[in-house]
């Protein structure tokens, strides 16, 4: 049972001289040293009994910035937002028991979207584990299905190697959350500190480079396409492959559609861009996928919100798929040409092998579709349409802000109407669809990218799930911006009730119980405005973008019963697409 311990001891013996001369530090001090060595500058946390000794170290050591969040779930989402925006692992630190269980939704969110997260959980002392001690929870057991891996530190000597391994696992291959459970006595115990060596995990060797044979086959395959579509997923962003994706699309001369998480990997201002595909994707992206003869999936996993009915999905195309995770290939859709490898590395090599394919006629057809079936909504004379708010923000920020979405209608409108031009700028809980993600994720992103404008756009429902993190933003004077798309409903559910349940709005009307969001924000110490028309919106954006010393919350009232279109109903196919009534 103590394999890791045995190997560590072996290594320790080899390095005995080093060991003898190393400084003696407590587990808590070692943890901080090891985090700094991993390049961590900020951690999001919340203290408690199991961590009180570690928190004493934060009092003395100011090198590692610890931000006190307001709720542990917010801490996990903030670390996630930080990771999505920066590309570095986000770190969250919480105490045992309820502190740990409060991060579960945040961990699951990161897991579904393959976000590198390090979750440090306090634990009761080793000798009390399993005794139902005060604030004890089997967090390893609870989070097993939603972590890429997890560790329980059993000896303080293991701590350094464990942290190195955790960061290695979280940030390489298909990234994901890794949890380290830290019993209280492990943080107090002292041992010799020396930095961790190279990581060598026998059971973990991700394939980065694509097989040369497959790359040559792929080049051949691509040249034969007459009607290709490139379908980009979050993997392209995770692998920092925007430049390679863009080059690939232009070399091949093929149109590009992105998933919700792929948004930003390819500039939406490019003629080849089709915007998002899937349930609320553009008509023309879905049409192109429906008609194409070759579908090239890059870091995308054929999620059900993309494919709808699998049997009718892109029925006439051959499929090519590039993914670092072999289990993603052929899981939902059979693939004719799979390449296992890192998107950036595979495309860099593939780009040297390919030429333009014969796609001129196809591109003309696609351009025609774009013209005939654009995204659209009907403006109103008096009030604001939610799409309009996003469109105006896109203009006001020149498509260059980082936008963190919450979940629901506004999330889809962001994906449709904000014209993203850069990767790591659209942060959205895609896989898990976590309401409450937006407020803390925007906060984390702003902390990771202080030089950029960061706007959290949330619905009035989701805002209240984590609105307490406004207090965190005020505490550290973080100038993060929030826009509440306030329609007084749980809008996406209401939309489904309208379309599929004959307008029976069961438990989706919030207006009577919503607080005065302006007063709420002001009571936290944020700057806030209420916006009801276009003039007020323009003026509010101006003020919002000028404020640089505290958070801003705009409560924007929009048409209450606006729907998201186009829409392909769940498990439907392109022929079921609803375009709305415009």
């Amino acid at each position, binding site marked *: *049972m*103590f*394999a*890791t311990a*045995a*190997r560590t001891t072996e290594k320790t013996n080899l390095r005995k001289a080093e060991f003898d001369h190393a400084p003696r530090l407590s587990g808590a001090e070692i943890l901080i040293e090891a985090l700094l060595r991993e390049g961590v500058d900020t951690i999001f946390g919340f203290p408690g009994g199991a961590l009180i000794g570690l928190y004493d170290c934060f009092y003395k050591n100011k090198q590692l910035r610890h931000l006190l969040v307001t709720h542990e779930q917010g801490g996990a989402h903030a670390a996630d937002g930080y990771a999505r925006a920066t590309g570095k692992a986000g770190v969250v630190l919480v105490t045992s028991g309820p502190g740990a269980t409060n991060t579960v939704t945040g961990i699951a969110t990161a897991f579904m979207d393959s976000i590198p997260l390090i979750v440090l959980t306090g634990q009761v002392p080793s000798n009390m584990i399993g005794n139902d001690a005060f604030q004890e929870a089997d967090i*390893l*057991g609870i989070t*097993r*299905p939603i972590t*890429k*891996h*997890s*560790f*329980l530190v*059993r000896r303080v000597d293991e701590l350094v190697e464990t942290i190195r391994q955790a960061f290695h*696992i979280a940030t390489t291959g298909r990234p994901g959350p890794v949890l380290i459970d830290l019993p209280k006595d492990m943080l107090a115990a002292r041992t010799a500190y020396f930095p961790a060596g190279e990581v060598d*995990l*026998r*059971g*973990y060797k991700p394939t980065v480079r694509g097989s040369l044979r497959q790359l040559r086959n792929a080049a051949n395959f691509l040249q034969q396409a007459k009607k290709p579509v490139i379908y980009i997923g979050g993997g392209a962003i995770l692998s920092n492959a925007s430049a390679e994706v863009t080059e690939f699309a232009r070399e091949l001369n093929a149109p590009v559609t992105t998933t919700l998480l792929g948004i930003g990997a390819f500039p939406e201002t490019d003629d080849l861009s089709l915007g998002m595909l899937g349930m609320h994707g553009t008509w023309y992206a879905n049409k192109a996928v429906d008609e194409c003869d070759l579908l090239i999936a890059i870091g995308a996993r054929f999620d059900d919100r993309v494919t709808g009915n699998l049997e009718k999905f892109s029925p006439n195309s051959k499929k090519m798929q590039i993914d670092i*995770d*072999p*289990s993603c290939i*052929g*899981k939902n859709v059979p693939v004719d040409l799979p390449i296992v490898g890192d998107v950036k590395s595979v495309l860099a090599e593939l780009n040297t092998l390919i030429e333009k394919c014969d796609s001129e006629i196809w591109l003309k057809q696609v351009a025609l579709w774009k013209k005939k079936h654009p995204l659209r909504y009907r403006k109103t004379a008096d009030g604001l349409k939610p799409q309009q708010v996003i469109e105006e923000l896109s203009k006001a920020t020149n498509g260059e802000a980082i936008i963190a979405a919450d979940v629901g209608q506004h999330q889809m409108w962001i994906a449709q109407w904000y014209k993203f031009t850069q990767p790591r700028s659209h942060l959205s809980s895609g896989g898990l669809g976590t309401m409450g993600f937006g407020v803390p994720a925007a906060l984390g992103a702003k902390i990771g990218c202080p030089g950029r404008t960061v706007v959290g756009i949330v619905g009035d429902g989701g805002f209240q799930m984590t609105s307490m993190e406004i207090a965190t933003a005020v505490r550290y004077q973080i100038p993060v911006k929030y826009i509440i798309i306030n329609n007084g409903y749980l809008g996406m559910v209401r939309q489904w009730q309208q379309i599929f349940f004959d307008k029976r709005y069961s438990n989706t009307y919030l207006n009577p119980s919503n607080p005065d969001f302006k007063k709420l924000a002001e009571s936290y110490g944020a700057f806030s405005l209420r916006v009801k028309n276009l003039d007020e919106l323009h003026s509010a954006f101006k003020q919002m973008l000028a404020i640089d010393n505290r958070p801003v919350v705009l409560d924007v009232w929009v048409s209450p019963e606006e729907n998201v279109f186009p829409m392909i109903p769940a498990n439907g196919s392109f022929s079921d697409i609803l375009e709305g009534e415009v």
Partner: protein
Amino acid sequence: MKHTINLLVENNVGSLLRIAGMFSGRGFNIDSISVGACEEEGLSRMTIVTRGDDEIIEQINKQLNKCINVIKVTDLTQEAFVHRELALIKVHATQAERPEIMQIVEVFRAKIIDLSPGALTIEATGSEDKVDAIISMLRPFGLKTVSRTGRVALKRDFQGNVN
């Protein structure tokens, strides 16, 4: 189709939980799972018997490979392999019944490993079919307790055709 998958796994906290949890979380079947120490210190060998069509088996293999604690995954079904299961069977046995039970034990090349006035404990080894067979032969005498290990398996070294 039935598949026998052999795993070499790190013997860490939670290894077994991760593997078993992956099966249940993704809705894969486990017919049997057996685990114990192996030739290398700190590692365990696990034999899992599972069922599914080719796509499911491919996913199972990929998902097992994804577990950080799993060092090697071998689907033995593709190869020649030997497998055994061990069962301990405690059966009611009056003095009069003993000879008949002992005869069954002999035919199945099993062993009697414990004897008491009212019962016999039998150790049987072999394929699941053989273990099933001896259990059904003993059932009429009244089974007290049955404990089975599930399949353990190894690839045959000699993979060629004997003919």
